[in-house]
């Protein structure tokens, strides 16, 4: 039996002449926290929309492997897609009662999930009176209704304050420890780096990376990065642009950061610059964050 909870093959979505998602193939392993990354308009929400029945795929297929009957499979997936969609003039309780009725969850579960997100005292307040952060919490409460095995969270920290963001992060890690599989779409790469085990990067609907986060940040690198500094920074910058092994140069708070070919060591950088008459006062290798790697990937291949 497959260890994946979702298998996607050739998934494509076209809106007229625009191909929003193009030939996606990926799997989500059971128990993983799977990050779905990409800039605005990269096709993240369209991909999730197809997996959740909101859009019908133009071609390709997907299979939620944990249940044979795909008709009602969504009832066992807790989903927060883009923003919480609730009825403004209904209370939090009534809104969740509608969701619980659709999912076939007993209404006694409503106060349990409201308590988890800290809204049990405001259960009878109308959704329209909630702040942005409270609305997001109610969306997360809906996700938790019925204690689903799989959670799909699309930008779950939108509108939350730093404390709220930290709480959501802790909640995600807690849920994973309970054996849940989580699909997390986010712009906040720092968040993804902190909680995700696997990820996929999309750009203009095309898969740019698929694999483990750790591999992407370290082992999967195709280049090296160095912090570099000299007395004459202008001369240094001019010289670097003429070196063959330098792929890119950018400024990072007064220091130059250079990206070189993968097999270039720090001593080779130092030697090459010394041969050009430039003596460095700082040279250190550094590991770029997921965010920097992400920017490099999407920038270089665009």
């Amino acid at each position, binding site marked *: 039996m497959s260890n994946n909870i979702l298998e996607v093959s050739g998934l494509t979505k076209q809106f007229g002449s625009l191909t929003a998602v193009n030939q996606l193939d990926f799997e989500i392993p059971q128990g993983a926290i799977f990050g779905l990354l990409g800039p605005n308009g990269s096709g993240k929400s369209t991909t999730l929309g197809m997996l959740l*029945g*909101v859009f019908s795929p133009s071609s390709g297929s997907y299979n939620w492997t944990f249940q044979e009957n795909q008709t009602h499979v969504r009832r066992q997936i807790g989903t927060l897609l883009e923003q919480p*969609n609730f009825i403004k003039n209904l209370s939090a309780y009534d809104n969740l009662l509608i969701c619980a009725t659709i999912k076939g969850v007993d209404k006694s579960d409503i106060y349990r999930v409201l308590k988890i997100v800290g809204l049990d005292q405001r259960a009878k307040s109308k959704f329209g009176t909630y702040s942005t952060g409270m609305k997001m919490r109610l969306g997360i409460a809906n996700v938790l209704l019925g204690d689903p095995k799989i959670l799909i969270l699309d930008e779950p920290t939108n509108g939350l304050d730093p404390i709220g963001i930290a709480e959501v992060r802790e909640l995600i890690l807690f849920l994973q420890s309970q054996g849940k599989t989580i699909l997390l779409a986010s712009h906040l790469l720092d968040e993804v780096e902190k909680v995700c085990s696997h990820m996929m990067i999309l750009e203009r609907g095309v898969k740019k990376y698929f694999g483990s986060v750790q591999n992407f940040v370290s082992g999967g690198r195709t280049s090296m990065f160095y912090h570099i500094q000299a007395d004459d920074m202008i001369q240094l910058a001019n010289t670097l642009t003429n070196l063959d092994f330098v792929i890119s140069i950018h400024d990072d708070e007064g220091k130059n950061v250079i990206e070189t070919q993968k097999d270039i060591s720090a001593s080779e950088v130092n030697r090459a610059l010394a041969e050009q008459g430039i003596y460095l006062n700082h040279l250190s290798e550094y590991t770029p964050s997921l965010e920097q790697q992400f920017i490099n990937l999407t920038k270089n291949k665009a």
Partner: protein
Amino acid sequence: MIQKLFLIDFLKYRRSRAFLGISILYIVIIAFPILSTLTTGQIGKEMLDSSVNSPEFYNNIWQTIGYLFKFMSFMLALIVITHQTADYQNNSFRQHIIDGMTRWEYYLSKLIVLVTISAGAALFSYLIVSLAAGFHGASVFKMFASGIPFLLGYFVSTLGLLSMALFAGLIIKNTGLAIALYLAYMLVELVLTLTLSANLMPVGGFATNQGKVLGLNAFDIDLLFPKGAFLGLLPSPYWLQRAINGGNDISKNDYVFRWIMALIYLGVFQLVNLRIITRKEI
């Protein structure tokens, strides 16, 4: 499943100001004057006092009530449009699908709403008539038994007009625009059918109800269009009287034709609404 789907929409409707407001208007603005007219007004006196418990009495009262009540369906249509567009504005349609409702279930939930409102309206009309007739000493049982064809006609007529309203709410997300489209269509169909019948009938035909088009009385050409077909289930007492005066026999076939047209359009609107719901990208 039906109980579950009913509960979902019931939860949405019970806190709705639009539903509450239009329902109160429905009762106060239209039902009370009808009740008042039937119990104390001229029509009431003629209809109710002259021959209580005679077959004509029941026939007259149901024809009049059925005819007056069918125009109230347009108010109920506003409720349906308002709630369908609210489903788009609150993203409820999208959220229900995400939460696991199938599109077929979503369609069924809407159909249940239409049937419930139509049945409620028919029940309400029966209540009003019973009150008025009871006031004049008529038998409530005979009232009900004689009213079944009219109640059925009113139910299907309302269901048809509400299905058209749901269609408007499904294709246009903006509430005001959807209502405007619905009312504009009603007006266009009215003008179109009046123009057609005026042009197709022989001179003087309108007054005598003479002149046939496609086997139909030219005066009844509106039965070929949806609004006319639905409203045609409850012909006006004025029409019936004139048809009889003009020497035309109101045969059973005429009523059968009216029912066939109404049911065809009801089926068409249900299929179109189902298709929109199952195909729409939300």
